[in-house]
C-alpha cells in the first residue's frame, strides 16, 4: 500500500507547489495524522469548496476521510470526470488504476447511478497520471472506494441537478417540476421528456452546484450501488484477449529489453561481455543502466540491459552477458541466520510503542506466563503480469505506458530521472495484471524511459522476467513476533507484551532500523484486547534487502502471531477458542487510543479516528457471524478441524473460520472457509465477495508456500517451480463471504487487503484442532503434520 507518509517523504525531496501532504520531519519519521486535523482545515488546504455556507435542506454533508489529506486530495468537479455526448453517451473518467479489485468499474458505477445514467450507455476512459487535474491517483492502501465514494456520489448528483436545471430552463418551468429518471429528464406535470444527450450542452455549461446545494438520491432509489449487478467494464475485452495490460502495448518500430540486475541488494555490475550478447540474433544493443545507491526509494537498481527485436532475443542475449558483480555490504546476508538474529532481538526489551497499565509488573506477578514466538519470511508479490513498461523518450518529451498503481508518482519520478519537465512527461495507465503493492513503485517505467532515451527515442518495452520479479523484488518484510501473556489465578489474561522485530519499509527511503507508525499501526499498537496491562515494543534490526509493501503489509505477521496466540492461550486455559477470543475483545466499545497508551499518534490508515474508530462491537460481530455460518462447535471427524481468526485492517473488520482436513502424509486440504466482512457500506458487494474469495487463496498460498530465502545475499528462489502458488488441485473448495449490511451512513472501508491476514492463523488454528500440532513458523512445513 502506498502510504501518504511515503508520499510525504517523496514530496520533501521534490517539492510540488500543489502538495498538501503533511511533511515528514527530517530526523525521525513523524507521521502527521490526518485524523487529528480538523475537517475544515483539510478542506481549506484542498481549496475545493467551503463548509461555511449553510447546507440546503436535504443537502449532503460529507463525512471527513483521509482522502483530502492525500497528495492533491480529492476532486469534486464533475466537469473533470463526466462528459455527455449529443447521442446520450455518458463518458466517465476512471482515475484509479485497475489491478483486479474492480474499482475502474465500481467508482464510475457509483457516479452513474447517482446521476441517473443507464449503465449500457456509459463509457469509461482511463485518466493518465495527472493528479493536479484528478486528485490523488495512488491506487493503494485499500483506499479507492473508501476515499472516493463520496466525491463520486456528489459529482453524479451535481450532474443530475444540472440536467434538471437545463430541462426546466428549456421548458420554462420551475426546477421542482422536473425530475431526472433513467437517462431522461421528465416534466412531472406534462410527462414530456428530454434525453440526457439533448440536454447535455446546456446542462454542462451551467455552473456546478456548491456541495451544500447537492442532494443525494435516497438509497432506496439505487439501481447499481449496493446491488452487485454491474459486470466488470472490461469483461468482454478480457475474455476475448483484447484487454491491454502494460505488457501488451505495441508501437511501430518498438524494441524489447530485459536487464541483468545486481543479485545482491546494493551491488553493481563490474564487467560484462557485450559482444557475446550482441552476437545473439536479434540483439540490437547492450546498455548499462545506472543504479542509485540505497536507499534509493523507487529509482532503478541499475544493471546491464539488452535491447533486441524480441523479448526472447533479449533474454537470450542477457544469458550471454556473463556479468561480474561487485556485491557490496549485503553479500553475507543469510535469511536463516537473520531469523535467529531477529529472535535474539525479540528476547530483549525493545523501544516502547504502547504502554497501557503495567505489563512488566503484571507479568512478574502472574500465576502463569505463556510465551510464543512467530515467524514469517520474506515474500514476493508475483502478480501474474510481471513489471512491464513501454516508453518513448525523444525531443525533450517522454511518453510512457505502464501498469502503474501510482501513475502520477511514476510521471514525476520519470521527469526527475530523465531530467525533463513534468509537463513534458505523459504516463498512460494500462490495465494491471495484478499489483499487490509491487506496481506502486515506478522503477520499471524509469528503466524503460532510460533505455528509450539511450536508443535515440525508439519505443522500448521493458520486461521483468519472472526470475527478475522474484530475485529483485521490493520484498514483503520478514518478521519475528513474540508475545507473552500473564494469567491470574482465576484464569483471566491480565498482561500482554508483544515485541515485533522486522526490517522496516522505511529503509527503502532512508536509513532506519525501527518500524514507523504505519507499520506499528497494523495490528501491533492497535491491538483491541480488553487487557488492563498491555505493552508493545519494537526491537531494532537492519535491513539487507529492499523492502516494500505487499498486500495487507504488516497485518500479515501481526494477525499470524496474535490470532495464533489466542488459540494457544485457549488451549492452555482449556477454554473454547471463540469464547476466549470474545472475552479478550471485551464488551462492545470504541477504544480510546490515548487511554490505550499508544506512543505518538495512532496511524489509523490515514483516516480520522472519529469516523473510523476501533469498534470492538464490530469485531465481535464478525466473529459471531463467521462462527454461526461455519457451524462453530460442530463435531469434527478425526484429523479435521475448524480454526478461527479475526482482524481489523484498512478500517474493515474480518473474521474467518477455516475447515481443514489433514491427511496422514501431512497434506492439508481446505473444504471450506467462511469469512465475515464488515466494511461499512458495501458499494459493490459482488466485487467485495471476489476480493475475499481471492484473499483466501492468497492467504493459503502464503501459509503453505511463500518464502524468499537468501544465501550470500542472493534470493534462492526464482520462478513458480520453487516459489509455489496454490493451484486448482488444492484451492479452498468453498469460500463463503458474508457481508454485514450497512446503510451509506456507515462509512465504506477497505476491501482489497483486509481479507488476507486472518487466513493463515485460521488455517494454523484449524490444523491444531485437527492434529494437536502447533505451527509458529511460516510457511507451514507439512512434513511436521505427518501422522506418527
Amino acid at each position, binding site marked *: 500500500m502506498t502510504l501518504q507518509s511515503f508520499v510525504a517523504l517523496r514530496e520533501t525531496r521534490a517539492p510540488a507547489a500543489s502538495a498538501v501532504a503533511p511533511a515528514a520531519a527530517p530526523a525521525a519519521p513523524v507521521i502527521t495524522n490526518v485524523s487529528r486535523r480538523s475537517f475544515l482545515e483539510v478542506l481549506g488546504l484542498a481549496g475545493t469548496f467551503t463548509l461555511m455556507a449553510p447546507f440546503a435542506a436535504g443537502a449532503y454533508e460529507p463525512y471527513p476521510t483521509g482522502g483530502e489529506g492525500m497528495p492533491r486530495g480529492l476532486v469534486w468537479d464533475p466537469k473533470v470526470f463526466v462528459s455527455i455526448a449529443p447521442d446520450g453517451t455518458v463518458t466517465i473518467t476512471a482515475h484509479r488504476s485497475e489491478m483486479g479489485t*474492480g474499482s475502474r468499474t465500481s467508482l464510475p458505477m457509483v457516479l452513474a447511478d447517482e446521476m441517473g445514467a443507464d449503465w449500457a450507455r456509459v463509457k469509461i476512459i482511463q485518466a493518465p497520471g495527472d493528479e493536479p487535474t484528478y486528485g490523488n491517483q495512488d491506487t493503494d492502501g485499500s483506499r479507492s472506494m473508501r476515499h472516493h465514494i463520496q466525491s463520486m456520489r456528489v459529482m453524479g448528483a451535481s450532474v443530475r441537478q444540472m440536467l434538471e436545471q437545463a430541462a426546466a430552463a428549456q421548458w420554462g418551468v420551475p426546477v421542482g417540476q422536473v425530475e431526472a429518471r433513467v437517462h431522461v429528464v421528465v416534466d412531472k406535470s406534462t410527462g414530456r421528456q428530454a434525453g440526457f444527450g439533448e440536454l447535455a450542452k446546456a446542462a454542462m455549461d451551467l455552473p456546478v452546484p456548491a456541495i451544500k446545494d447537492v442532494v443525494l438520491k435516497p438509497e432506496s432509489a439505487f439501481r447499481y450501488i449496493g446491488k452487485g449487478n454491474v459486470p466488470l467494464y472490461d469483461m468482454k475485452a478480457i475474455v476475448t484477449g483484447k484487454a491491454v495490460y502494460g505488457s501488451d502495448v505495441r508501437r511501430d518500430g518498438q524494441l524489447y529489453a530485459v536487464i541483468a540486475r545486481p543479485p545482491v541488494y546494493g551491488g553493481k555490475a563490474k564487467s560484462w561481455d557485450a559482444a557475446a550478447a550482441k552476437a545473439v540474433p536479434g540483439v540490437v544493443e547492450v546498455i548499462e543502466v545506472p543504479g542509485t545507491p540505497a536507499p534509493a526509494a523507487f529509482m532503478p537498481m541499475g544493471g546491464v540491459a539488452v535491447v533486441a527485436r*524480441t523479448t526472447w532475443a533479449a533474454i537470450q542475449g542477457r544469458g550471454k552477458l556473463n556479468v561480474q558483480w561487485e556485491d557490496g555490504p549485503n553479500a553475507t546476508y543469510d535469511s536463516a541466520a537473520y531469523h535467529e538474529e531477529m529472535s535474539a532481538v525479540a528476547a530483549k526489551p525493545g523501544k516502547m510503542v504502547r504502554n497501557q497499565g503495567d505489563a512488566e509488573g503484571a507479568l512478574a506477578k502472574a500465576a502463569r506466563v505463556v510465551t510464543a514466538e512467530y515467524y514469517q519470511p520474506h515474500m514476493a508479490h508475483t502478480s*501474474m503480469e510481471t513489471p512491464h513498461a513501454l516508453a518513448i523518450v525523444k525531443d525533450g518529451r517522454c511518453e510512457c505506458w505502464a501498469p502503474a498503481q501510482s501513475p502520477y508518482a511514476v510521471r514525476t519520478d520519470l521527469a526527475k530521472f530523465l531530467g525533463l519537465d513534468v509537463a513534458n512527461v505523459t504516463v498512460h495507465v494500462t490495465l494491471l*495484471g*495484478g499489483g499487490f503493492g509491487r506496481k506502486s513503485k515506478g522503477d520499471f517505467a524509469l528503466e524503460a524511459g532510460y533505455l528509450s532515451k539511450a536508443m535515440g527515442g525508439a519505443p522500448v518495452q521493458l520486461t521483468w522476467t519472472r526470475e527478475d520479479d522474484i530475485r529483485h523484488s521490493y520484498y514483503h518484510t520478514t518478521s519475528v513476533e513474540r508475545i507473552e501473556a500473564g494469567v491470574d489465578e482465576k484464569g483471566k489474561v491480565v498482561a500482554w507484551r508483544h515485541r515485533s522485530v522486522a526490517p522496516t519499509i522505511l529503509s527503502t527511503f532512508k536509513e532506519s532500523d525501527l518500524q514507523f507508525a504505519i507499520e506499528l499501526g497494523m495490528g501491533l499498537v492497535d491491538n483491541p484486547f480488553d487487557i488492563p496491562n498491555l505493552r508493545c515494543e519494537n526491537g531494532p534490526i537492519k535491513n539487507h534487502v529492499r523492502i516494500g509493501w505487499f498486500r495487507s503489509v504488516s497485518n500479515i505477521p501481526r494477525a499470524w502471531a496474535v490470532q495464533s496466540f489466542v488459540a494457544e492461550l485457549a488451549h492452555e486455559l482449556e477454554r473454547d477458542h471463540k469464547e476466549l477470543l470474545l472475552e479478550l475483545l471485551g464488551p462492545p466499545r470504541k477504544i480510546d487510543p490515548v487511554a490505550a497508551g499508544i506512543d505518538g499518534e495512532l496511524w489509523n490508515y490515514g483516516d480520522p479516528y472519529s469516523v473510523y474508530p476501533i469498534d470492538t462491537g464490530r469485531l465481535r460481530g464478525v466473529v459471531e457471524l463467521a462462527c454461526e455460518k461455519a457451524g462453530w462447535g460442530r463435531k469434527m471427524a478425526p484429523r479435521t478441524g475448524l480454526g478461527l481468526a479475526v482482524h481489523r485492517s484498512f478500517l474493515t473488520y474480518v473474521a474467518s473460520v477455516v475447515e481443514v482436513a489433514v491427511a496422514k502424509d501431512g497434506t492439508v486440504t481446505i473444504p471450506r472457509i467462511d469469512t465475515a466482512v464488515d466494511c461499512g457500506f458495501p458499494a459493490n458487494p459482488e466485487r467485495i465477495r471476489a476480493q475475499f474469495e481471492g484473499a483466501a*487463496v492468497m492467504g493459503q498460498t502464503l501459509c503453505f508456500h511463500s518464502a524468499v530465502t537468501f544465501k550470500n545475499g542472493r534470493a534462492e528462489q526464482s520462478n513458480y517451480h520453487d516459489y509455489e502458488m496454490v493451484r486448482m488441485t488444492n484451492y479452498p473448495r468453498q469460500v463463503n463471504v458474508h457481508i454485514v449490511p450497512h446503510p451509506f451512513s456507515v462509512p465504506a472501508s477497505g476491501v482489497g487487503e483486509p481479507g488476507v491476514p486472518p487466513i493463515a492463523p485460521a488455517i494454523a488454528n484449524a490444523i491444531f484442532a485437527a492434529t494437536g500440532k502447533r505451527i509458529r513458523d511460516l510457511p507451514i512445513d507439512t512434513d511436521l503434520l505427518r501422522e506418527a
Partner: protein
Amino acid sequence: MAIKLNVNGRDVAVDATGDTPLLWALRDVLNMTGTKYGCGIGACGACTVHMDGKAVLGCVVRLEEAAGRRITTIEGLDPEGNHPVQKAWAQLGVPQCGYCQAGQIMRAAALLAEKKNPTDAEIDEAMAGTICRCGCYQRIHAAVRLAATGV
C-alpha cells in the same frame, strides 16, 4: 528465415529463428498480445494456446514444432466472446485482474472439447497448470461446470 504458421485460420510467415518459443513469436512478431507471458518455464499456464485442438504452453513450444500446425489463440476462440467458456466466464464474473484468464479460458475450452462433462476432479486436474494469483479458482471451477452444462 521465415517460418509458416497457421494462426486462427490464417497462414502467416514469422520471421524468427526456429527455436523461438511460440509465445514470443505471437506477442512480439505477430503483435498478438492476447496470449500472456507469466513464467517462461511452463509452470503457470498464462501462455496456453491450442495446437491442433490440444492445449499447449506457448512458452515451451518452439516455432519449428508449431510450423504447419493449426494454432488457435484467445483472439481466435470467438472474437465476439460467444464461446460457451467465455460466456460462462462473463456470467459468473470470474476475472479479477484478468491477466491469466486467456490461459484459463483456452485450457478450459480444450478440456471441454475433449470431454463434454468432466467430473469435479477432472476439472481441477485439467486446470491445475494455470495459476491465478488473484485467486479466482472457485469461480473458474464453477464456470467450467457452467460451460459444460449449458450457459
